[in-house]
């Protein structure tokens, strides 16, 4: 019988006066045993992160404070212990890793000294010992060349390496509890898989109790022993992972789980033969120029796109899938002429639009439009929603009244209230904003819509609504769509065909169903196998990632000199 490490009961966290609700979390009961992983799942604003912070005594007091309840760790109520005692516990008995390792690490201190601090402040060890131990730790978390990494600064490491360093730091004193607050959300899917495995491995070694905060049910399925689902500060359901995922009781849990896109590709439409957009041998290189005022050294050259060739057929949704840095967003921006291409041709209706001058391009804006990723950054906060939507037609010469009339129609098409018209973007939630963004892109009645990660910043329940909306609109307006995403689950649900990109190259193109069933390229195989929760809500048994070793040549590799 594993020992019970943590027992949270009737926890209430009070918000400052004037907030939209009195309690950030209330009546929360949780427990964590040795060697066990408890996943706390919820959407943004559910209070899951605050719960984690309360355990560390890291609430932004006095504004936000524990007003009721207790957090018992090894018989001690953390909410009541002295500051000194709390400090003793932090880092040695309970430690924590965070979502964004770049900001969670001090940018001006070396990794080594940041690990060293833990030893210095908790145990007495000689300098050499501490040094040795730190190097061992870095080796334990599979960081290459630990001695070198000791002297490295956070910005010199990759995201995954930083998170490994964070984990090394958190596990330095073999804590009984590790709190992981969305530790993989900012990472690419393949890296995520490695980090999750690392946490799991370390947990086995040290018999640590892990409290894992996440919004991703896939991750939950992969690592959790038990699950607690939070909504609006309340634990609505908890139980073993099997119970909750496969047999949810609470309607909220049910809704959440059903919103998680399945990895099984949807049925593909019959694809027209008519090409609406041709991308041929497009290349794009960043950097190489001098920095500001010629002060910097010539920056590193990055080939963002290398001879990319793609076709978009009438009425289809073409997914472009890849991890960060794969060039998928660059491709989108080149197609819509936010960036200039270095070489190659992008052709619509026989016109090579990548060569058009800005002014000449203006008329082509009617044909092709874009939906952006970040619903918060993509709407000008100083302009009313109605005007945002009407802007495009007005710019293209449509009379103001007509444009506004069209904007009103669009607002109802995307499912927003008519009153939205006069409001400013900040009065809307993320999902609503994304609807506004979609309305804006539709205002010009485009034939091609590029959607650049349109749902990646949204909670899962909102995600599915927006995906449905896009689907409806595509049908209704007879759109052809390029859908950029890093999320294979999403890709599976919306794309008729998909292109997989890596390091600026298209490594594989094909029907979604075919690629999922029989990935050709090693990278595609890796991607598929890294999708979290594929054993739970995964691909139909036909897929057995990892088996097919055949390396498909990327299409059109005719390298121009």
């Amino acid at each position, binding site marked *: 019988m594993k020992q019970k490490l943590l027992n949270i009961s009737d926890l209430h966290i009070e918000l400052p006066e004037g907030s939209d609700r009195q309690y950030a979390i209330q009546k929360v009961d949780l427990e964590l045993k040795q060697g066990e992983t408890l996943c706390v799942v919820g959407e943004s604003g559910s209070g899951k992160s605050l719960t984690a*912070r309360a355990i*560390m005594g*890291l609430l932004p007091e006095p504004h936000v404070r524990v007003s009721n309840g207790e957090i018992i760790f090894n018989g001690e109520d953390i909410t009541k212990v002295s500051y000194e005692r709390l*400090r*003793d*516990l*932090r*880092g*040695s008995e309970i*430690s*924590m890793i*965070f979502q*964004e390792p770049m*900001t*969670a*690490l*001090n*940018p*001006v*201190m*070396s990794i080594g000294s940041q690990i060293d*601090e*833990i030893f210095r*402040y*908790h145990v007495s060890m000689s300098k050499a010992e501490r040094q040795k131990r730190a190097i061992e730790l870095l080796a334990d978390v599979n960081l290459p060349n630990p001695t070198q990494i000791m002297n490295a*600064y956070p*910005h*010199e490491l990759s995201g995954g390496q930083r998170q490994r360093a*964070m984990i090394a*730091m958190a596990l330095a004193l073999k804590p009984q509890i590790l709190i992981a607050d969305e530790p993989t959300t900012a990472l690419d899917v393949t890296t995520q898989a490695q980090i999750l495995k690392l946490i799991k491995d370390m947990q086995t070694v040290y018999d640590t109790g892990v409290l894992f905060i996440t919004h991703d049910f896939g991750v939950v399925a992969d690592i959790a022993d038990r699950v607690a689902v939070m909504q609006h500060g309340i634990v609505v359901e908890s139980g073993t992972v099997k119970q909750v995922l496969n047999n949810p009781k609470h309607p909220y849990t049910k809704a959440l789980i059903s919103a998680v896109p399945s990895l099984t590709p949807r049925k593909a439409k019959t694809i027209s033969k008519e090409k609406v957009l041709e991308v041929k041998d497009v290349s794009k290189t960043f950097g190489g120029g001098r920095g500001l*005022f*010629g*002060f*910097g*050294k010539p920056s590193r050259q990055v080939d963002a796109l290398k001879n990319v060739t793609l076709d978009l057929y009438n009425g289809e949704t073409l997914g472009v899938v890849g991890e960060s840095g794969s060039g998928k967003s660059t491709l989108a921006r080149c197609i819509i002429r936010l960036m200039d291409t270095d070489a190659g041709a992008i052709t619509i209706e026989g016109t090579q639009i990548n060569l058009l001058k800005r002014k000449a391009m203006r008329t082509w804006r009617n044909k092709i439009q874009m939906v952006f990723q970040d619903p918060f950054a993509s709407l000008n906060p100083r302009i009313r929603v109605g005007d945002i939507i009407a802007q495009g037609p007005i710019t293209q010469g449509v009379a103001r009244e007509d444009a506004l009339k069209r904007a009103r129609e669009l607002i109802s098409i995307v499912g927003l209230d008519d009153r939205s018209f006069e409001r400013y973007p900040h009065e809307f939630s993320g999902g609503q904003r994304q609807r506004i963004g979609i309305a804006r892109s539709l205002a010009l009645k485009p034939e091609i819509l590029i959607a650049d990660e349109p749902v990646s910043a949204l909670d899962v329940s909102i995600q599915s609504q927006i995906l449905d909306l896009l689907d409806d609109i595509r049908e209704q307006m007879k759109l052809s769509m390029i859908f950029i995403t890093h999320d294979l689950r999403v890709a599976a649900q919306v794309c008729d065909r998909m292109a997989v990109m890596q390091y600026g190259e298209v490594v594989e193109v094909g029907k979604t169903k075919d690629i999922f069933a029989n990935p050709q390229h090693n990278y595609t195989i890796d991607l598929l196998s890294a999708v979290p929760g594929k054993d739970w809500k995964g691909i139909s048994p036909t897929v057995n990632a990892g088996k097919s070793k055949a390396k498909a040549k990327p299409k059109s590799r005719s390298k121009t000199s």
Partner: protein
Amino acid sequence: MTRSSKIFRFVLKRLLQGIPIILAIVIINFFLLNMADGDAVDVLAGEAGSATPEYMAELRAKFGLDQPLPVQLFVYLKNVVVLDLGYSFRHDMPVSELIVDRFWPTALLMVSTILLAVGFGILLGLLAAMRLNTWKDAVITVFALITYATPLFWVGLMMIVVFSLNLGWFPTSGMENVAAFYEGWDRVKDIAVHLVLPTITLSLFYLALYTRMMRASMLEQYGQDYVITARAKGLTERRITFVHVLRNALLPVVTMAGVQVGALIGGSVIVESVFAWPGLGMLAFESLFARDLNLLLGIFLLSSVLVIVVNLIVDIIYSLLDPRIEVS
């Protein structure tokens, strides 16, 4: 490439890049000064009492002021290339000698002011940020604002009244005791004593800037994620403040200190005037009204070089403080 050779190349490059800026400053000021009515000869003749137009014409010819402007400029620039700053019309001696003579007092005042202002500014800002929203914070903030908003000459004069006349701690003005003419260490001590009041007066003005900046910077850094990490690691607040936050918070303050140097050279005119401190600011002020073109251009040139060099030093310090910035 080793780090030191990297820094060397960086320094060289930056200095080269400073040249067009300095040239532009010289040319702008050359033409501005020539837009002004009257020239050095008018002033000299006016001061002398009376002089005939023939005599004045002779002087103009001697100074080269009778040449067309582009020729004058060309001659000046040609001389500058070989580091000859020309002759001061008014002082009847080489500009470089005059400037060097007045440079050290300026440098002394500048360095002591920056050290005091930045040092205390950092300290007060730190204190205010650590005691956020307490009476200490309020007192520091108000103090900083008041020192900033009080006219400099008023502060200076009050300093003299209180510390020289009433308390007799410091001399009213000047840089050295002219009755004694001390030598060696006594002279150093003497100059230090004379330096106190002007330094305090001038740094009070800049103190506010650094205090507020440091406070804001500390607060911003306190809100960063790495602070939470540090707390989660069980570090003491002391260590978090002084090791983690402080170093990050210093970065914008360091940048600011670099930017301020240019302002400091000019901004010290009033303090130099009040305390009869023989600095470049006062020299510039006087040479402007004497239309001592060569001298004024020389001062602009030197101070521009100074600003560029100090900014360079600041950038190097910055790169030492912040590993993300690489000199290249």
